[in-house]
Structures are given as C-alpha cells and as structure tokens.
C-alpha cells in the first residue's frame, strides 16, 4: 500500500555494477585522517595529543554539546598530528583532523555490549548511542541520539526505516540489507524500544527484491519483542523515493509541512545502515569506526567495509581504480554528490559512495525558455524556474517567499533542464547567501549593543568623575570654612583674654606658627585642585 507524490525521475540505476557480489573489507591504511566534524552540529574537541598511543575504538574527540557526535580511532596506532586537512566539501577547504599512524596491531580498547538492552534505561541507551558517535548514515549525518530524544510533548507513533537507496550507482544499503538483515532488525528494535513506538515500516525500492526477501525472511526468524508490529513495503523506484519527506508520504500518506520535523507528526525516520550501527554499539559495544562504501563507476564495482579516516587513494588502490584527468571523482551519487579534487581526502561517516566516472562533456548554459519541465519533475512541487530567476537577480526575500528552503537539492530540475542551467547551484548559492546575511546581521547586532554599552560606560564614567570632583570640592570647601571658623575663633579668643591677662593668652594660643599653618591649609588644598 502506498500513495505517490508527484514529480521525480525514472533514472537508469547502474546498480548491478556493484551489487552482485558480497562486500569485501579494505585493509588498514598506513595513515588514518579523521575529521573532528563529521556530523551536523557542534564541533568536537580532541581528547588526545600528538604522540599519544591510541587503541582501536578509543574516543579521540568529543563535545559537551548534546547536538554533536563523538569521534573514535578506527584502528590502533599513534597520533602524529592534529591539523587542518582537506575533506570532501564543495569548498575544497581544509578542516581540523586527527592524523593517526596505524601500527597494524588492531589492538582494541576494552568494550562490551549487551543483548539484554531492555535491562537498561532509555536514557542510558541514548547515552551509549551518543558516545558511540552514531549519526544518520543516509547522508544527513545528524546525531542519532538527538533524533531518539523527541520533545516531551510529542508522541512518536511510527518508526520508518529508510532502505530506499534511490540514487543511481549506490548499493551499500542494498548489500547491507542482504548480508546483515538480522542485525538491522535488532538495531531497529532497540530504536523502537527507546522511542516506545509500536509500529515500524521499512521502505525499500522495488529494484531491490533480494534485500526485500532477505529482510522478510529475517523478520520471521528474529525474535523481536512481541508488541512490535513491523511491515516491510516495496516502494516504486522513482528518484528521489528515499528523500525523507517523500518516503514518509509514500508509506503513510502524511505530508510534513514546511519548517516542520516529521517528529511533530509522530514519525521518526532512520536509515537501515544507522540501525546496523546502533546494533553494533549496543549489542557489541563497537562505536562507529567503519562503514560500507560503494566504489563504482567502472566496469566492476564493489562494496567495501572501510575504516573511517581511510584516504580515498588507499580505497581506490585496493579496488584497482585509477583516476586520470579524463575522470570525475565524486563522493556520493551522481545527482547529489560532491566532486572531489584530491584523493588524499578521507572516507567519513557520510561517505556512502565513491563514484569514478568519465567526465561528462561541458555544456554551455542557454537562456531559460520557460518550458516548465523543471516544475513537472520537482518532488516538492516548487517552482524551480521562479527560484532560479530570484537567485539570479539576488532577490533573497522573494526567493524565501516561494519556499527556497523546502528544496531538497535533489537535482531533478537541473537534470531535465534543456538549457543546462545549473539550477541547484543557484539554489545553494542563494541558501548560503541568506545564511551568511543572517550571521552578519547577528554580528552587527552584537557590535551595536556592545558599542551602545561602550558609550553608556563612557558617559557613566564621565558622570562619576564629575561627581567625585564635586564631592572633593565640597569636602574641601568644608575644611576651608572650618579652618576659617577656627581661625576666627582663635582671633576672638586671642582678643578677649588680652583684656584680662597675658597668661591666658599664652595658654590659648601657645604657638603662633601653628595657627599660621592651619590657616594656610585651605590655600594648599586649593593649589591641588
């Protein structure tokens, strides 16, 4: 049973290049390059130093923030550097990485899991998942423990497992479902237990019949806790069937409005590979230190279990792929992936695919002919052509009014555009410009408040200074008048006794110089003013 969203593309899959044989395991590379930021959220901080010996599975970077994911050593060895290194990112910029020289011993840190997870509290399970550094492996790399902590006022009724894997060429989830079906189901049960959901739907594109059958079979064999109702549903193979909101609509008929999370509609969606990692973390005590990566694009493709931090060059060498200048190297799929300029870039938690393709011919962009093909294929029912006009003319208010931020950057519109307009590039340009404007504004607001406070402080200090002066002056004036009074009194006293006796005078004013010094005090003070 499923409802279908409008738009999308029927693409040639190229899946059989890589999904026909069992997955293989890449050897331990000499050097591991492990970025501190492999997730959405706060940057982690290293907890090891250069020169430290690390064991396999040891936490090497973490963050106090909740929305973050710990980072672990994928193999044993020595930390040789903590430095900026290029990573897979369209900017080609470098970001902080921990570099480990491996010793090949694969010495594990002590770790243990439990299959009796129901003995543990839900909070403890979430904490273990967070400490294992698990993030969404479908591509969004959002920290999993955050998704397992819905706001207290929402009740999650449905858990969806995303096994659609809709982008051409990529088959790592397909192979994982075929090879580790029971582990995926156990990971799913742990997530369902944490979220207290009674109902799970697993969505798989209908171009993966073996994965579907293996999971069905495993479901009948695996003892899950009884109150869990699990459905496995095949969905039509239309790109992007695996988009979160698209899959939810297909499986439940529910539309998630703009700016809303599925959780607000009682739905949480996890990728099948994430479930496998949850199983490993809880049952075996193994943090996220490796993943299945599809290496494909040439005659023969592979699915390779690869340690996080393995340089792409090592992986390419292992499967005998030799990129030349005629090739384009992509991390991810052909529709949404990132072109790479350099093979020293490491495999990270998000790397589902390394695609080595012949570079497509350059196409000259032509003017938009308003054919509206882009709007027909948009799975979110946006107006790509209108978005393009506003991005092009930098009308960033108007572009948000027509829901730029609902665009999932699936690339369907660019794919069909007969004028070869790089539409998605325009949307990404507009999005990052808008974010940047927002950041600038916040920075300016901070500076304005601080400057206003600065002016206020100067004003206050000026006032205080003036006050101090005034006070000093009045106290001085007081001493002055007091002194004058005293002097007057003395003269009076002097005058009076002179009439009576000289002796008295001597007593009252024993020292004339003394009286002189007293009278002169105010003058001295005056000079100080």
């Amino acid at each position, binding site marked *: 049973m499923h409802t279908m969203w409008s738009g999308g593309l029927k693409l040639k899959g190229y899946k059989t290049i890589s999904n026909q044989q069992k997955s293989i395991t890449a050897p331990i590379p000499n050097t591991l390059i492990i970025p501190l*930021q492999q997730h959405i959220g706060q940057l982690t901080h290293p907890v090891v130093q250069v020169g430290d010996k690390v064991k396999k599975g040891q936490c090497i970077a973490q963050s106090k923030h909740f929305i973050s994911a710990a980072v672990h050593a994928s193999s044993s060895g020595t930390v040789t550097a903590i430095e900026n290194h290029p990573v897979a990112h369209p900017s080609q*910029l470098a970001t902080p990485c921990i570099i480990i020289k491996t010793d090949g011993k694969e010495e594990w840190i002590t770790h243990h899991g439990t299959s009796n997870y129901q003995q543990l509290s839900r909070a403890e399970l979430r904490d273990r998942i967070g400490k294992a550094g698990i993030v969404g492996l479908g591509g969004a790399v959002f920290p999993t423990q955050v998704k397992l902590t819905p706001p207290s006022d929402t009740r999650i009724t449905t858990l969806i497992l995303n096994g659609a894997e809709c982008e051409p060429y990529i088959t790592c989830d397909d192979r994982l479902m075929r090879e580790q079906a029971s582990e995926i189901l156990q990971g799913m049960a742990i997530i369902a237990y944490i979220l207290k959901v009674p109902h799970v739907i697993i969505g798989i594109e209908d171009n993966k019949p073996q994965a579907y059958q293996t999971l069905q079979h495993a479901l009948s064999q695996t003892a899950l806790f009884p109150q869990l109702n699990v459905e496995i549903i095949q969905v039509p193979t239309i790109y992007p069937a695996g988009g979160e909101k698209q899959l939810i609509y297909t499986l439940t008929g529910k539309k998630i409005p703009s700016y809303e999370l599925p959780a607000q509609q009682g739905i949480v969606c996890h990728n099948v590979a994430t479930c496998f990692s949850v199983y490993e973390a809880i049952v075996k005590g193994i943090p996220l230190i490796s993943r299945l990566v599809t290496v494909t694009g040439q005659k023969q493709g592979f699915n390779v279990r690869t340690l996080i931090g393995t340089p792409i060059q090592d992986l390419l060498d292992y499967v005998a792929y030799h990129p030349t200048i005629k090739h384009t190297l992509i991390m991810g799929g052909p*529709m949404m*992936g990132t*072109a790479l300029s350099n093979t020293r870039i490491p495999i990270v938690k998000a790397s589902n695919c390394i695609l080595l393709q012949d570079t497509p011919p350059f196409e000259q962009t032509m003017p938009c002919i308003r054919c509206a093909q882009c709007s027909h294929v948009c799975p979110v029912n946006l107006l790509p052509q209108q978005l393009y006009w506003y991005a092009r003319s930098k009308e960033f208010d108007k572009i948000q009014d027509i829901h730029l931020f609902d665009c999932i950057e699936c690339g*369907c519109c660019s794919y069909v555009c007969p004028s070869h*307009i790089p539409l998605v590039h325009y949307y990404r*340009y507009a999005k990052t410009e808008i974010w940047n404007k927002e950041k600038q504004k916040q920075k300016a607001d901070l*500076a304005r408040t*601080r400057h206003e406070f600065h002016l206020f402080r100067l004003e206050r200090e000026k006032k205080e200074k003036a006050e101090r002066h005034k006070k000093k002056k009045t106290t001085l004036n007081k001493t002055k008048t007091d002194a004058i009074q005293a002097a007057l009194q003395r003269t009076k006293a002097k005058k009076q006794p002179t009439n009576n006796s000289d002796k008295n005078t001597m007593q009252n004013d024993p020292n004339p110089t003394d009286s002189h010094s007293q009278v002169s005090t105010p003058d001295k003070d005056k000079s100080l003013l």
Partner: protein
Amino acid sequence: MLNVLFVLSGLTLAFGMLLGYAAVRFKVESSPIVEQIDALLPQTQCGQCNYAGCHPYAQAIAKNEADINQCPPGGEATIQALAELLDREIIPLNEEHGRHDLPKVAIIDEQTCIGCTLCIQACPVDAILGAAKQMHTVITNECTGCELCLPPCPVDCIRMETTTEDIEDWRWPYPNTYTTTLPGS
C-alpha cells in the same frame, strides 16, 4: 439603526483623527528612519565615514548631510541596501573613505604588549581585555576589525589578520555560465 451607523462612523472618524494626530505628533521623536538606516550599517564603528560611528552616520544620511556611499566596511552590499531603503540610485563606494576589504580582526602580540591600556580606551566595542601593566588580549569574536586600536599603541604590537574562511561560513559562489551534466555540482 441609523443612530448606530452615526455613532460608529463618528467613532471611526474620531479614532482616525487621533491616529493621524499621533502619527504627526510622535514622528519626529522616534525617528524610525535613522534606526532603519542604522540597522543596515555594519556596526564596525570604525569612523571611516568621517562620523563618530555608525549611528551618527545614519543620522547624517537621514538629514541628507551625507551620501550613502561612505562606508567602506559595508561596501557594495550596504550601498545597495541603503539605496533600496531610501529609494535612491546605487552609486559606487567613495574610495576617499577607504576600500572595501576582507573582514579582519586585531591580534595583540602578547610578548611585546606593555599593558599601557591605550588600546582598551580606543576600542569602540570593549573587545580588549586587560588591566594596567598586564598583558592585553582581544576577544576575537567581538572585534569588529575597525583598526582604531592600532594608532594609540606605543609599541606597535597590534596587527590585523584576515579572518580565515571557516568551512561553516563558506558560501557557494555565484554560478558561472559553464556547467557539467552532474546536476548536483
């Protein structure tokens, strides 16, 4: 029935007049245009516009005493925004006031600093920490890059550094006319 209508229209008229009066009476005092202009200025507080800061410049623009192209830190983007707000022509930056440059922050060489506090007094946003005869340091996040702390330093130990581009702050460039058939890149 008619009475009700009269009363209602009377009330409407009265309130309308009240509103109109209020608009005129309170307009000058709140001067929202100055605040609107100020909201578009970068708040670097550098004084390159020849005013004592962004707010005074905003006041001068509002009074038509200054042109909209005198703020180098804001550059083209600020001129554009001001032109839009004030319904004026977009004009190029008046380079007599300086050139638009990459964002910078001040760094104090803590070895050389003698702790004279002169830079603290110059900083328009109180972004420098330190006490007399103690080494000073700049709170990088709050430094606007105005460079006002440079001239007073008697030992020239403050330098400006272009802020390195963070991967988080990276922006997609404006697309050029060539493209490959890879839809996402």
